[in-house]
């Protein structure tokens, strides 16, 4: 446990357009094995860019211009994620780090059954399995995320949004990754469904021991589910800490402001009128 699973050191990502935009600016953080790390921030703060950088999914004009991302493999050797390419990157992406994105549930192919789509993850990653074994594993995964395995033969449009998002989580779990990056995985869903999925994630984490990088604008949610939380503002990580510490003694004004933005459902309304102005940019 001494080595963090993932460590991001002084990472900088720029969108190299006419006037370059630094979306992620000198960010350092680490994630321990089995930990849920919550990353909070508002639209445009760079939190999604960070997720894409970690999974090496950045597309031009976005490019990593500084820093490193290191990974501790299961044999304790250190891997530089930024050096991976080609086949090794592809393998790494599913088998070590998996991803669930906000709109991911809409990325299911409408003309194939969800069973065959899950089974394809095994096929694409060259696992030596027979067709029957793959189907069996797909069924098992569906049960894992709480969907009846009769649903294997269903097409995506026959499932609700929450179920499709769970299918995506099942696919992410398929190759037993050690980190799952989730970028607003429940934002499009209703609160009751969201709560369901979150509890599911938490339970699965207990079972499989993977770590989660959970990205959302909903700080209230992160406070409930995370082990540690990072707050991002205009590309910088302005504060990190346990939910308890953030809630009780926020160090940065912006953290305080974000906390005040979520009135407690059954508590009192926080004092309003505190408006955070970041360098006068807004």
């Amino acid at each position, binding site marked *: 446990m001494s080595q963090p699973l993932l460590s991001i050191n002084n990472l900088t990502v720029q969108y190299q357009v006419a006037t370059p935009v630094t979306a992620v600016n000198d960010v350092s953080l680490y994630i321990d094995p089995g930990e849920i790390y919550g990353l909070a921030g508002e639209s445009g703060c760079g939190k999604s860019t960070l997720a894409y950088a970690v999974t090496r999914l950045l597309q031009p004009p976005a490019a990593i211009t500084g820093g490193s991302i290191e990974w501790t493999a299961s044999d304790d050797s250190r891997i530089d994620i930024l050096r991976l390419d080609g086949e090794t990157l592809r393998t790494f992406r599913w088998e070590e780090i998996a991803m669930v994105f906000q709109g991911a549930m809409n990325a299911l192919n409408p003309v194939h059954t969800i069973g065959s789509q899950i089974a394809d993850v095994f096929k694409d990653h060259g696992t030596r399995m027979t067709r029957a074994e793959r189907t069996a594993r797909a069924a098992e995964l569906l049960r894992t995320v709480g969907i009846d395995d009769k649903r294997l033969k269903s097409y995506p449009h026959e499932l609700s949004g929450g*179920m499709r998002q769970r299918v995506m989580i099942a696919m992410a779990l398929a190759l037993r990754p050690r980190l799952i990056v989730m970028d607003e995985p429940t934002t499009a869903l209703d*609160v*009751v469904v969201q709560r*369901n999925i979150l509890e599911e994630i938490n339970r699965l984490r207990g079972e499989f021991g993977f770590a989660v990088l959970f990205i959302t604008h909903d700080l*209230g949610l992160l406070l409930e589910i995370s082990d540690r939380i990072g707050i991002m503002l205009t590309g910088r990580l302005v504060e990190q800490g346990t939910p308890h510490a953030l809630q009780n003694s926020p160090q940065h004004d912006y953290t305080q402001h974000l906390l005040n933005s979520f009135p407690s459902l059954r508590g009192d*309304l926080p004092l309003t009128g505190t408006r955070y102005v970041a360098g006068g940019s807004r």
Partner: protein
Amino acid sequence: MTTLEALHLRKDYRVRGSGWRAARLQAVDDVSIIVRPGETVALVGESGSGKSTIAKMLVRLVDATSGTVTLDGETIGQGRRATKRYRSRVQMVFQDPFSSLNPALTIRHQLTRPLRIHGIVHSAAEEERELLRLMESVNLSPAKTILAKYPHELSGGQRQRVAIARALAPRPEVLIADEPVSMLDVSIRLEILQLLNDLKLERNLAVLYITHDLATARHFSSQIVVMRSGRVVERGPSDAVILNPVHPYTQFLVRAAPDPKSAPWIVDPNRHLGHPEVVVSTENLELTEENTSVHWVRSWDDDAAVNTMLASLASAQTS
């Protein structure tokens, strides 16, 4: 000022079912809402609960299948002129300020039109004065500069302020706010809600605040109406509905909403037995695919009571 009374609203949609028969979808089923001047009523529900359809019926973008809407007891006719008169008294703020302002027109144009249509201003000087007043009332400054801009040059919060100003232009007495902050950045949501609250007090508006967010519904309204699948499941004073939810669905909502500062609500499916005013029918809490899966029971197993309730509902359904 004006009380909006919407009684027994109903909206059926014909959807193409299988075969020749057109199926009917009851988007809104016998919903009544009363909003009094200087009061905010929150209409709470998840997506698909029919709350947006109600908003559209109340500003006559959608015709109700049945039901009556009166302003101070007065029914207003359906003709073009009557509708215009109605809309000068009932206005709406849309959910998405990125799509509710025409990208091709300046802010000035978009605010001037309602002033002219509803005959609020009669001269250029008056118009200018009224525009500046509107901008000031939604705290947009410098007014002149912003009036000359196009929507894409403004931030989300500024756009929503413009949208509020546009709704206020005809000097309405009733304001329907359909998820006015859900598309905005979290850090400015409270500001906009606070603005709506101030405007309500200042102009003695009757405000219907439509939202899926229980917390802001509680803090910014005096009454809450909870909807599910087109029907009202629970209503009452805000604090009562949130702090002591009775209907199992409301309890689920309260339980599910993130609230790190308070202890989780423990769902008690039998609470409604002591509250005859809250009617719980199994039909009303019909179990969808979503929540009948094995999973549902498993994930809620910290609340033993939920299991009991789901079991009783399931048996009620099969019998």
